[in-house]
């Protein structure tokens, strides 16, 4: 009985622990998650800067294989997400929406990189001692603070754009649907404001929960070997090893799909809310 308590939830330790990198501005606390975000940002710049340069040389038809691949994704976002909700005039919001999509996508995908031996980073443990920790398997978007920051930035962005588009007074008046009896308006105003806040919170929470939950299932699948190997002597290790590796691989493929899907859903909802802020349909 004390066996399971003594293992002290290594799943939660892998998922929810944040350890600062040694020497990384001391207690300013640059963790592996922040390092992952920097890697995602540098990857974005490295991937898209040549794209822009080659577009300048042949403006309508992009040349090269990577350029064409990126073009598929970019045009998919433009035609299926932005144009239906924002119209052709919404093309000026496309750089932000593209950046949001690819940043969330890269952050999600970094969490799926397996252990890569050259990329070790020195990490300060909880007891203050420095030890080497691997760089892979840390999802930046698996920290609620990262997704909350992304969501709050996007929320401030669409609210400010809505206020700039309609003017402050008209925006506040449009928070409540029109044509209501007078005694209903204060209550509905509060409810709509709470709705606005909840939309932002739900965006952050959905992305974080999908990433963290997926990794929790993956660790549980892989950890079946350890947990069941202790029982009944050690003979269950090999069969449980086969089961856990197969189920772990299947969950891995699902995780890749969920990474793409959650980036798409995040971008889609930001675009929908932006459309609602710019042109309230009530």
């Amino acid at each position, binding site marked *: 009985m004390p066996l399971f*308590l003594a293992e002290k939830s290594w*799943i939660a330790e892998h998922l929810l622990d944040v350890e600062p990198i040694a020497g990384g501005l001391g207690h300013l606390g640059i963790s592996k998650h922040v390092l992952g975000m920097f890697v995602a940002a540098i990857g974005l710049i490295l991937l898209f800067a040549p794209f822009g340069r080659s577009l300048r040389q042949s403006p309508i038809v992009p040349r090269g294989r990577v350029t064409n691949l990126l073009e598929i994704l970019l045009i998919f976002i433009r035609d299926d997400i932005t144009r239906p909700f924002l119209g052709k005039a919404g093309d000026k919001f496309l750089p932000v929406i593209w950046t949001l999509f690819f940043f969330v996508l890269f952050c999600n995908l970094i969490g799926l990189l397996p252990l890569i031996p050259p990329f070790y980073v020195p990490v300060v443990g909880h007891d203050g001692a420095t030890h080497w920790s691997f760089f892979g398997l840390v999802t930046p978007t698996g920290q609620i603070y990262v997704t909350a920051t992304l969501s709050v930035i996007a929320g401030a962005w669409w609210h400010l754009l809505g206020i700039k588009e309609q003017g402050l007074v008209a925006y506040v008046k449009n928070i409540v649907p029109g044509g209501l009896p007078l005694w209903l308006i204060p209550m509905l105003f509060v409810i709509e404001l709470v709705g606005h806040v909840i939309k932002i919170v739900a965006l952050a929470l*959905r992305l974080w*929960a*999908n990433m963290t939950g997926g990794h929790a299932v993956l660790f549980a699948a892989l950890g079946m070997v350890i947990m069941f190997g202790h029982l009944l002597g050690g003979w269950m290790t090999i069969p449980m090893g086969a089961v856990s590796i197969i189920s772990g691989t299947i969950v891995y493929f699902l995780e890749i799909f969920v990474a793409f899907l959650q980036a798409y859903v995040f971008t*889609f909802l930001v675009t929908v809310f932006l459309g609602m802020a710019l042109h309230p349909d009530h």
Partner: protein
Amino acid sequence: MDYMLLAEIGTGAGLAAVGAGLAAIGAGLGIGRIGGQACEGIARQPEAAGDIRGSMILTAALVEGAALFGIVIALLFWTKSGMGGA
């Protein structure tokens, strides 16, 4: 070992697990219904299959988000019981 403490820890973590299971039931019901209606729509109009499939995946992700809110609460209470957590 203090058995009253073990009982309390076990109850807290166990109820969190029950909550997570209920959230999974909600997700299964919702997404199953979405899948079923999408298949009916494709059966009625096979040329709209691409559109229907895209809408189905998007709606499934949104419903799954709602179920994951329940999982998040369960995770919170599991870490707050004595059994695990960071």
